[in-house]
């Protein structure tokens, strides 16, 4: 969103890469002329403040996805019948004027008429909270054994527990489950998009480069796939996955199912680029210098629109994340004991549960924040990747 744009610098026209035009006037022309494509994209991208902020947010989310146990306070699978439906709780940093992070101790009492557990914070008893404390044992990336967590109950031997985002029906700690759900939900999005990119570039490239009847067949195939109603098809496909499959098998099956329709958009874009580029001088030059077709495609043509592919894929990830959430929410995607944001939201499927425990809706906030950040980042990348906007 910058209303005033200076005209493109006439001295920056270059032969081979078409994306060297920019509105960067504050850089001297020399640096500009020799800058590689990615640097130009980065200069433009930096101006988009909101996209930069989104990038930072996403880095934090990615960190959680890689080290979910470090951010958790309790084993996400651990149930505890006596602690069901505990409400959310904030951390207080000051106690009687000095810096002692703590949380109120919650005391449960069963209401004698409704038989519902009611939790009240204990006025005098506090649970001291510390950072980098010892907690349950886990492995970092499945290699290093440790028990250090970002925060938790200060005294590792105490029987008390803290629940930042409350607990669910089975008394499982929702904060820890959310951390673990991040890994699954985010990675499903990334894996499904990677598959889409692979098929999109492969088939779109073949279609656009060779043209003719190959192009005809692939295009009709894409049209048919795109005119299918996606959600009912996904539902039917995921419902037909055998119930006795392991979590990993279901996980990969779902990524494949999600990318089955996702690749078509990318394939069309890649095809369009190839079609328009086939006639360009630099492709002709490569032909005449005796480059093989593979080399022309991968060394000369593909690099000119890598930034576009990255931007389009960034915008495709949130779509995949939402779709996985839909499917798991409906009980057709991942199933417990797997944890994803959709699986967590399954607990909040009907009015009765959200009336009883509204904090079960909080994983939805994680979905919204992640999708928002990815969309803004993707828009920023797309604007930066497009030299003519």
């Amino acid at each position, binding site marked *: *969103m910058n*209303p005033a744009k200076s005209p493109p610098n006439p001295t920056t026209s270059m032969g081979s890469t078409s994306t060297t035009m920019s509105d960067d006037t504050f850089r001297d022309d020399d640096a500009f002329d020799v800058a590689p494509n990615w640097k130009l994209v980065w200069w433009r991208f930096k101006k988009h403040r909101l996209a930069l902020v989104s990038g930072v947010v996403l880095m934090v989310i990615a960190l959680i996805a890689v080290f979910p146990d470090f951010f958790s306070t309790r084993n996400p699978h651990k149930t505890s019948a006596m602690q069901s439906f505990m409400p959310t709780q904030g951390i207080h940093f000051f106690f009687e004027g000095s810096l002692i992070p703590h949380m109120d101790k919650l005391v449960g009492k069963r209401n004698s008429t409704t038989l519902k557990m009611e939790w009240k914070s204990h006025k005098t008893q506090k649970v001291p909270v510390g950072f980098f404390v010892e907690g349950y044992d886990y492995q970092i990336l499945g290699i290093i054994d440790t028990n250090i967590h970002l925060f938790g109950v200060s005294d590792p031997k105490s029987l008390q527990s803290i629940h930042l985002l409350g607990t669910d029906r089975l008394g499982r700690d929702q904060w820890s489950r959310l951390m673990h759900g991040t890994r699954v939900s985010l990675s499903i999005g990334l894996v499904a998009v990677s598959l889409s990119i692979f098929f999109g570039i492969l088939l779109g490239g073949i279609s656009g480069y060779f043209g003719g009847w190959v192009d005809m067949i692939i295009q009709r195939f894409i049209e*048919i796939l*795109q*005119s*299918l*109603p*996606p*959600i*009912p*098809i996904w*539902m*039917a*496909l995921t*419902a*037909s996955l*055998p119930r006795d499959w392991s979590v990993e098998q279901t996980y990969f099956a779902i990524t494949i199912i999600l990318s089955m329709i996702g690749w078509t958009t990318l394939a069309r874009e890649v095809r369009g680029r190839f079609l328009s580029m086939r006639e360009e001088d630099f492709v002709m030059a490569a032909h005449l210098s005796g480059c093989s077709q593979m080399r022309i495609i991968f060394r000369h043509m593909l690099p000119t629109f890598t930034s576009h592919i990255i931007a389009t894929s960034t915008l495709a990830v*949130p779509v995949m994340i*939402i779709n996985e*959430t*839909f499917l798991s*929410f*409906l*009980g*057709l995607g991942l199933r417990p004991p797997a944890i994803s944001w959709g699986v967590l*939201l399954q607990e*909040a*499927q009907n*009015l009765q549960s*959200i*009336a009883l425990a*509204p904090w079960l*809706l909080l994983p*939805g906030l994680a*979905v*919204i924040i992640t*999708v*928002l950040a990815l*969309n*803004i980042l993707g828009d920023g990348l797309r604007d930066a990747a497009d030299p003519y906007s």
Partner: protein
Amino acid sequence: MLQYIIKRLLLLPFLLFVFSIIAFILIQAPPGDFLTSYIAELAASGSSIERAQIDALRTLYGLDQPYYIQYIKWVSRLLTGDLGFSLDWQKPISELIGERLALTLALGIGTFIFTWMVAIPIGILSATKQYSFFDYFFTVFNYIGVATPTFMTALVLMWIAFKYYGLSITGLFSPEYIDATWSFDRTIDLLKHLWLPVVILGMDGTARLARVMRANLLDELKKPYMEMARAKGLSEWRLVMKYPVRLALNPLVSTIGWYLPLIFSGSVIVATVMNLPTIGPMLLRALISQDMYLAGTIILIYMILAIIGTLISDILLAWLDPRIRMEDN
């Protein structure tokens, strides 16, 4: 024009043929045939089904014959208007789907009208008053609208209505009208309930459409003919409405092709959460209980709705834009 429409219509049988094959594959996708799992389920629940009835069903669907014969049997029964029998509900499928299909259509079309009525004014105002508070407000709103899964909106609104007003905003009818026959009062009752799912379902689409409209209109507003018309003394408002808005609407019509099917397919989730009597929740139930012929029929209906959506957009586009209908000649 007529030639163009006929061309499009001629494609229909082919598309339907391909789609019916896909639907059939989806019916066959679960491991084992549905009858076996149905018998197993009955046995597990303690009841049983008579041998003769099983055999009758087996021959009806041709389950002992190869796939292509099963497909032909299924399709030829569909063509004669016989949608089959639902084992789960113990009712003919056509009887089950009838009213639900009408309500699905009402929900979809209602959402579509709502989206257009809201998105176009927002798009026009955002573009003509670019970088104003209004524009920024709707940019934020649009981002959030796209990022929020529809079922989250539904759940949050249901919770708010319950918590602060003690209302249960589910279903499409008040209790006394659920099983009533159609009457004027029942239609009014439906409209009273329909608006909320329409708004929830339309939020994402409104956000997207407003963005498309804003971008299209901004492109038009920069063109030289605007200067020309201004120089001739046309008032700003009339000028905007008369030329650029009409031109900016054109690309918007082409979004009908993907948007209408998207509404129908997206309504599955909202309908499930809000417990609406449409074909969506029925599809979910059929898939979970492996009532595959019911599921297949509903999927085929969604496919047909998708085709109709694309067809409408193609015809509208050709009617609005002569370049498209001339292209093929």
